[in-house]
């Protein structure tokens, strides 16, 4: 069973539907016991980093997630959920993340050529950097759907793919059992579904 963590940020309808579409046994939950029993964890998220991390902390879910992942449980963070895996974010101040991956999250403002619009919205091509079980169906150049204004940086050890938008922005990360995508696999058509399928199928 996969625990899809519901901590009150954003709408899980599409994500749950897409997981159902690839045949996942998924439970939407904020219950520590369910998360402990789950085989894998999906951490979603939209909105602001500070609010999200505060919600995880106030419910104690941050500690449970860290414990389970450090014990080897596979986790897949999506969009803000991926950003939360890192040490720090500089979105409206400075906030500590879960610290499961090295790196930090910074704004695109001032980092991109001025003619580029922020947020980075739309379908962009993946530039793959290494192989990983969650990318087993992915080819270099496959397009996926992004919506974000902040991106992860200083994360060379986990970098799985980037997308070109003025510079190469972190698109996907994976380091042993810790994985995530900045883009929305649940909105990326067949390519996105194939990433979710690969996560569901992933065995050691």
């Amino acid at each position, binding site marked *: 069973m996969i625990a899809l963590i519901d901590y009150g940020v954003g*709408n899980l*309808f*599409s994500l749950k*539907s*897409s997981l*159902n*579409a690839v045949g996942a046994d998924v439970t939407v939950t904020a219950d520590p016991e369910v998360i402990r029993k789950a085989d894998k964890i999906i951490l979603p998220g*939209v*909105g602001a980093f500070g609010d999200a991390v505060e919600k995880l902390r106030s419910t104690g879910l941050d500690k449970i997630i860290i414990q389970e992942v450090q014990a080897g449980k596979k986790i897949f963070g999506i969009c803000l959920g991926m950003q939360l895996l890192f040490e720090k974010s500089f979105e409206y101040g400075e906030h500590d993340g879960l610290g499961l991956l090295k790196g930090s999250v910074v704004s695109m403002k001032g980092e991109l050529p001025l*003619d580029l*619009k*922020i*947020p*980075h*919205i*739309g*379908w*962009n*091509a993946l530039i793959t950097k290494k192989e990983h079980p969650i990318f087993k169906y992915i080819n270099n150049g496959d*397009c996926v*759907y992004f*919506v974000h204004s902040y991106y992860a940086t200083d994360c060379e050890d986990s970098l799985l793919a980037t997308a*070109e*938008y003025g510079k190469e922005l972190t698109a996907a990360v994976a380091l042993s059992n810790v994985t995530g995508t900045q883009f929305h696999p*649940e*909105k*990326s*058509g067949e390519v*996105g*579904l194939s990433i979710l399928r690969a996560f569901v199928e992933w065995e050691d």
Partner: protein
Amino acid sequence: MITKRIIPCLDVKDGRVVKGVNFLGLADVSSPVKLAKFYSDSGADELVFYDITASAEGRALFTDILTEVASTIFVPLTVGGGINTVADFDIVLKCGADKVSVNSGAIRNPKLIEEAAKKYGNQCVVISADVKRVDGVFRVFSKGGRENTGMEAIDWIKHAVDLGAGEVVVNSIDTDGVKKGFDLEMLDAVLNAVNVPVIASGGAGSKEDFVKLFKTLPSIDAGLAASVFHFGEIEIKDLKQELRNNNVTVRL
């Protein structure tokens, strides 16, 4: 490189797609769910659903359909039509919409944009404007293009973006239905005024019209159309191939 988006728009009334559809190989051509699946399989980058129903029963049907579409089709969905309150946003977002398009509701109450953007993020709020030249000035029309609001269009769009709209759909009433191409002059004026994605609507008659749109206005983000796709006059797959042949970056 970010790709240029091709977006079919479906007007839904009492649970059916209107504007006559004429598809080969589709038995139930007015089924929003089947049509959405067909477009998604053909390479549509996003789908827009406009609810043009007036009755409460029709509204309920619309949200049922939206739920069904969002359960089976995994590309971004924008929903518009009759969005007047933050509660209206909430209803369609819970049914699986990703973005919500506001038009007359935001003209009556511009604060709607601000409130919705605060609650759901700028990326969720799309300002859709029906624009027509009146005595040489771009004016915003409301109520489905029937009523001249008297507002200057570029000012209104800029104001909507300042309030928090994260994307703009510009529908030119002057070119809509004429099928002689997009309103490049009007779109250029909007592109010069805002720095959020701009979607061109109104006037597409052929693949060449899309090529011309993206070649003439390199910063336009997407082209939207309804009848040329519904009637099969343009196949999205062919259109994207044609765009790629003309060095426009698209998702194939």
